[in-house]
């Protein structure tokens, strides 16, 4: 109806179409009440019939009748995001979103007012080199194969600088100091801030990690992300399971400093975030409307102001300065008892950073975040087109360490894409055998531990709007109270236990049980010749 304008779209132009079945609908209103973007509404329709008598005995007329239906809005601001909450709440399976078979035309109009599309979530690309890697070295009579079910495993990794024995001895003798090293579980909950995540989600993850440590003896660690850490957690014994992150916004760090004299435990480590795989070179921005009293208290800011995290740290003008200065300051804060390591976006310059770190004995590790990492908010273009895949990057870094003879000294932690298609243990094992000492995981936990509906198919992706229908990334109690922290904790525990079982299923047939097969690349194969060449693993067909 009405006139055309360039961004006037039909439902067919949209990436998601809402299919509604008039015969099944009971007009209960639940779908329109739950839709996070108000993509659907009740519509009034007029049906016209022209009853004509057989034989044309009378002049025919028109009969009009009014009926109601669920209509899909087509303006870009209300385009369906495919989250499927409508079908979740529909008592009668009368409504569900379907990905349009047409090319998405919304893409060309999701920039109203000159503001390019921003979103949360993931790259929306199902391709994964990690998924294609197979474990081809199976112990068949050549050496004792282990039984994942009954064999005892010690699946631990080391976070910290592992100096050669004589250097440790010298260091201890001459300096009275040796680098702190933590023995931890090789799957780490990656940094997701209090703010990006809802309070219930954040607490659920923390509680689950505490449970894994204290009830199941799994030394799982969790990074806070950049958004501070609740004062109670800082003063609790659970802090030892926590990796405190510091990033360019420095949010919440005054609270951490205030808590320092009262800490019962040292944190596991300090992660200095220089970059994020999902949006390398781009900063963060927590919009003012998400900065409520709670977030403000934890971040140490007044409520209702936007909080920018710049793309780069201020006051650091060279790689030497960037790395050395930050590591020094943060090591000093805990009396050099806590490992401190940088986290960078995967980049073709990773090895330059690594070589710098190799010369700094206070640097505990290097975390590399690949392009398939997730984010709460980023520009579309940054998510889709910026960044480096993790597989080749972590491999390059590891081989570089091999070249300088320090592959056992500086642990590499890989993130960004592990489990993107649901194959978490296989992807993590592949990363470990490519050279990672451990793997950071975030998005997979959103899906598995909290029911995030995001997929690699541009589904939902509205974390940035604070309207997460599952309450994972929202600060609105109406949404985040849908999520019970205990459920999140319970599912996190499930995930780690099943991950552990699967990892054993991969490692046992290779005869590995007491040490992680870090860099055991002879176990890996891939059916792509060039990928095999690039990763220096077997080409198998």
């Amino acid at each position, binding site marked *: 109806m009405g006139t055309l304008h360039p961004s006037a779209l039909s439902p067919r132009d949209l990436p998601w179409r809402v299919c509604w079945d008039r015969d099944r609908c009971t*007009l209960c209103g639940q779908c329109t009440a739950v839709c996070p973007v108000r993509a659907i*509404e*009740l519509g009034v329709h007029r049906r016209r019939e022209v009853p004509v008598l057989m034989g044309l005995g009378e002049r025919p007329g028109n009969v009009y009748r009014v009926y109601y239906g669920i209509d899909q809005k087509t303006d870009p601001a209300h385009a369906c995001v495919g989250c499927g909450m409508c079908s979740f709440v529909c008592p009668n399976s009368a409504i569900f979103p379907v990905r349009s078979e047409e090319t998405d035309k919304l893409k060309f109009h999701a920039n109203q007012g000159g503001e390019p599309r921003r979103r949360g979530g993931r790259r929306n690309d199902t391709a994964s080199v990690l998924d294609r890697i197979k474990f081809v070295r199976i112990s068949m009579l050549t050496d004792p194969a282990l039984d994942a079910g009954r064999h005892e495993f010690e699946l631990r990794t080391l976070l910290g600088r592992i100096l050669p024995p004589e250097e440790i001895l010298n260091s201890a003798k001459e300096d009275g100091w040796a680098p702190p090293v933590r023995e931890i579980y090789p799957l780490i909950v990656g940094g997701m801030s209090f703010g990006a995540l809802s309070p219930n989600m954040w607490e659920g993850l923390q509680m689950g990690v505490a*449970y894994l440590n*204290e009830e199941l003896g799994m030394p799982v660690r969790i990074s806070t992300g950049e958004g501070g850490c609740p004062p109670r957690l800082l003063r*609790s014994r659970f802090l030892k399971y926590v990796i405190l992150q510091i990033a360019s916004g420095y949010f919440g760090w005054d609270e951490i400093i205030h808590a320092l004299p009262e800490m019962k435990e040292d944190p596991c480590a300090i992660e200095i975030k220089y970059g994020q795989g999902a949006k390398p070179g781009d900063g963060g921005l927590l919009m003012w409307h998400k900065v409520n009293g709670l977030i403000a208290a934890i971040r140490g800011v007044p409520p209702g102001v936007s909080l920018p995290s710049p793309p780069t740290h201020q006051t650091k003008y060279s790689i030497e300065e960037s790395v050395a200065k930050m590591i020094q300051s943060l090591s000093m804060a805990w009396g050099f008892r806590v490992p401190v390591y940088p986290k960078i976006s995967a980049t073709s310059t990773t090895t330059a950073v690594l070589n710098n770190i190799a010369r700094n004995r206070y640097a505990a590790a290097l975390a590399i975040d690949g392009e398939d990492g997730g984010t709460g908010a980023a520009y579309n273009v940054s998510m889709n087109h910026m960044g480096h895949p993790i597989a080749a990057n972590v491999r390059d870094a590891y081989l570089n360490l091999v070249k300088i003879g320090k592959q056992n000294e500086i642990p590499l932690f890989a993130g960004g894409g592990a489990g993107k298609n649901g194959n978490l243990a296989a992807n993590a094992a592949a990363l470990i055998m490519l050279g990672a000492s451990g793997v950071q995981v975030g998005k997979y936990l959103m899906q598995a531990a909290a029911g995030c509906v995001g997929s690699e198919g541009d589904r939902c992706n509205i974390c940035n709007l604070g309207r997460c229908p599952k309450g994972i990334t929202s600060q*609105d109690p109406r949404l985040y109270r849908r999520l019970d*922290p205990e*459920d999140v*904790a319970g599912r996190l525990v499930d995930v780690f236990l099943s991950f552990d079982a699967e990892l054993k299923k991969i490692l046992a047939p290779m005869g590995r049980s007491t040490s992680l097969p870090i860099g055991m690349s002879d176990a890996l194969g891939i059916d792509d010749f060039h990928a095999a060449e690039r990763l220096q693993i077997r080409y198998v067909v």
Partner: protein
Amino acid sequence: MNRHEKVVIQGMEEGSRVESRVLEERIQKAVAGGYPRVEVQAYGQHGIGGRLWNTGPEPVLIDIHGHPGQRIGSMGSPHTFIEVHGHASDDVGWLNAGATIVVHGDATNGIANAMAQGRIYIAGDIGARGMTMTKSNPRFSPPELWVLGGVGDSFAEFMAGGVAVVCGLGSHYRGNILGHNPCVGMVGGRIFFRGTQKSYSEADVRMTRIGDEDWQWLQSGMKDFLRAIGREDLLDVLSGDRSAWRLLAALEPHEKDCGKRISISRFRSRVWERELGTGGLIGDLTDMDRGQVPVIATGPMRRFAPIWENHKHVPPCQAACPAGIPVQRRWELIRRGLVQEAVDLALQYTPFPATVCGYLCPNLCMQSCTRNLDHMTPVDVTVLGRASLDAREPRPCASTGAKVAVLGAGPAGLSVAWQLWMKGHEPVVYDRSPEPGGKIAEAIPGTRFPDEVFRRELGRVLEKISFRRLMGEFGQKEFLALKEGHDFTVIAVGAGIPCTLGIPGGEMAVPALDFLRRSKRGDITVGGRVVIIGAGNVGCDAATEASRLGAEEITLIDVREPASFGRERAAAERAGARFLWPVSARAINATGVELADGKILPGDTVVVAIGDRPDISFLPEDIDSRHGFIVADDGCRTSDPKVYAVGDSVKPGLITDAIGAGRRVSQSIDALIKGVHGPPEAPSPMDAGRVRLEYYDPGRRAAEDIGQCSEMCASCGGCRDCGVCEAICPRQAIFRKDIPEGGFEYCLEDDRCIGCGFCAGACPCGIWELRENEPLE
């Protein structure tokens, strides 16, 4: 065959070891040959004493001396009895299917592996992985392993049946009699043991009480075991003290499923909150309830809430009317049966509702009627306009005594005066003309409206308003005098001076205003061919009049596409007028109009209708004017704060524009006189997209009466009281309430409402609006 005969088979012959295959053949041959007892001097041979399947019901005894190899008695038969007089190697009784095997010493790894029936008695210790993968077939008795000493690591892995008895006597496995990590993957069977054991797979087995039946079984079996190994002396030690024994039994599948983990909820209260404090991680920062809410919530937890916004916005018709007449509200009154009230309402806004709304106005309200969006005919307001002839006069407010001079008795001036009178002031209208009415009275052709309607409306105004004719000179001096004598002065002199064409012969043309005035007075004639320069609505009026006066060929020319529209244009076209554009006139002469291209457009009478301008020669210098028009701000105030200007003297426009401006001026002056703030900010216009036209019959073209008109009105922004919202609400959250002072409202029960917005979607009039619920934090 002599049953007591015994054969001796040597494992070493003439200094060389007999191959396992050959030894096996010899044993099989001896047994088949009827020897019930075979003595073997073993030298590491494999599988001695196994597979003696074809012996019949009689027992076969195999005595093994020397150094037997692995898998003694493997795949053993129920009638086979094997005695090893010394130590034994790995896998004794492997896949044993019934043989009884006695070892009078220690045995190494894998003892009883995969045993399904039979018994194995060990007089010493065994190595790792004993009793693994054992079975229990319901058709036979379960297998048994008896060990006098202790067992090595990984005992009973994947044990699926049978009984193991570990006596723990004289073992070198002190302190861990079942070895490291026993029972992993064990799914069936029992293990009796004596002595200290550090751990076992709690995921698979549990320690259980030894019942009377178990104890009797153990006691009776113990006798057989000790007799077999020749250690009956230990019977008292091993059978005397039940409390020294313990029993491990495989968990039932359902016992495994329940797990031993404590629940998260328990962890939260016992561990998490005990360390962090009540409320957990952020209990110190907020006391907000963070407990789970349903996905579909009501009351404060729903995300959206509808609001009944009756008459919050101005409907499109009213917004379009320059006079601001509340058209929709009038139809609403009629639907409620209040026809007279609807009619009366007009006089609040205009002194000429019948003349203007009913005849002269292009009815901007109808042009903007929401019904047009669906190609439906707009509601015909002229019906209501004409009915307003019988409107009852409003009662004026209490007199203020304030005097306002209104210069000009046209629609603008009379509107100002009418409004000021209603507000209790004393306006005086001045005009040079002997009669008030301005262009309506003087220039608009009588064919456009019935004169008696206007006369009645004019009469109604003049009953209330003083009118004075200005005689003689009226210049700046006179204007200032007039101004001095009044509290405020409003200039509404209109545009009375026709614009002329500065082309040769221009003076030969008749200005349209003069033409229309004279035509209305009946003192002009026209030739057969009339050319009208300027094809706007005034030109069209001139054309219509020319036709009435007898012209046969009427041509309107314009330099651009004619701006005329509506009834004027239609009447001119009906009169057969021809429109020519774009053409421009170069000169006028006796034959007609010479066009720019040199052609002559023949014309006996030439009329110029290119607009009029006001006569403002009386205007003092301190009142600004531009291009011959008075400059006034949005509130119609001139640069002199006591002087206002409205109508065509400010900007040429419609009659209804002039009437609307008159109302606005009166509001401003009234506010100044009474010392109150100006008129309240006008409400925002209604978004017509919120109105649902689907409820109306698109086939209906016209209404038969005023009642049908009112039913056709979509009532934009004003509740029709139709009850659709009550009916559509899936939670019955909406109800209608009568207001004691009159009227009604629709209310919401927040505790029922889920914020689906169905009310907003279904409301025919766009009254319900769905908003985000109030922020919670």
